[in-house]
């Protein structure tokens, strides 16, 4: 029997598992893009489907993200933006601006795995009150389950 896909399905095709789809155009985060004057935020769940206007489907396995942040006290403090897929797995994607000149941009791109719902959590640490700016927060791609 001739099978074109890696398993038998309608039309002899099933979508490959773990497929990575890179977006043709970056997708800005509805919530975090351009969010200025921020203070500390504990790990907060982010619904990726809603935050990307549906570009990231429900139940995604991982997302490719790029963001750039700055903090007016980065020269002496430890500001950062980090993400995780739940409290049990710890954080993975981290953009830390520590040690940079005050208000100098810190840029980071990478992959963040999602929780079983296809969501992530985001935490922010600012050096002072309202000192952290998220100048950009973009999705570049998604890994499907």
């Amino acid at each position, binding site marked *: 029997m001739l099978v074109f896909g890696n398993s038998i399905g309608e039309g002899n095709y099933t979508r490959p598992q773990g497929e990575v789809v890179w977006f043709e155009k970056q997708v800005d985060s509805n919530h975090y893009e351009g969010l200025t*004057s921020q203070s500390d935020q504990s790990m907060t769940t982010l619904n990726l489907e809603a935050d990307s206007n549906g570009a990231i489907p429900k139940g995604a396995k991982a997302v490719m993200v790029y963001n750039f942040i700055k903090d*007016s006290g980065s020269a002496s403090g430890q500001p950062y933006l980090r993400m995780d897929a739940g409290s049990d797995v710890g954080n993975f994607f981290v953009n830390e601006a520590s040690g940079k000149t005050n208000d100098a941009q810190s840029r980071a791109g990478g992959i963040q795995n999602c929780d079983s719902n296809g969501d992530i959590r985001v935490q922010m640490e600012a050096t002072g009150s309202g000192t952290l700016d998220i100048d950009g927060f973009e999705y570049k791609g998604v890994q499907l389950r």
Partner: protein
Amino acid sequence: MAITIQSSRDNAGDKTVFFTISHGGKNYKWCGDIPKDADAQDFLDAKSDTLKAEILRKRYPQAEVPQLDGKSALESFEAWVSAGAKNAEVKGTDADGVEITIKAEETIAKKAWVDIEPPVDQAALIADLMKKVEALEAK
């Protein structure tokens, strides 16, 4: 006055104000960014409760504070601390509908506070020293 301003520094789009704020019998030296055209004292005084809640967030970063009915965010946080700084137990149900504990009650440790001091103006210090050296040399 709960907030005393030490100094301020202009940034590209705003200004950073260094201040001391009292809360719970302790003085905290901290800083915050405010709009360039704002009066620092008025701005920070109006934001006093928010600043105190943010300080509690710094001291208890893992706190999961329930918002109490009719209480502000600060009052809710203070009540959470007074009750032992414990994150509540999280319960759920398994596939058979039986109630299970997903996460046990957890006491959150208090982090030490690190004061933020206003930056030292090194150019002014050097200029001051140079003046003293020149005065000594002139004698």
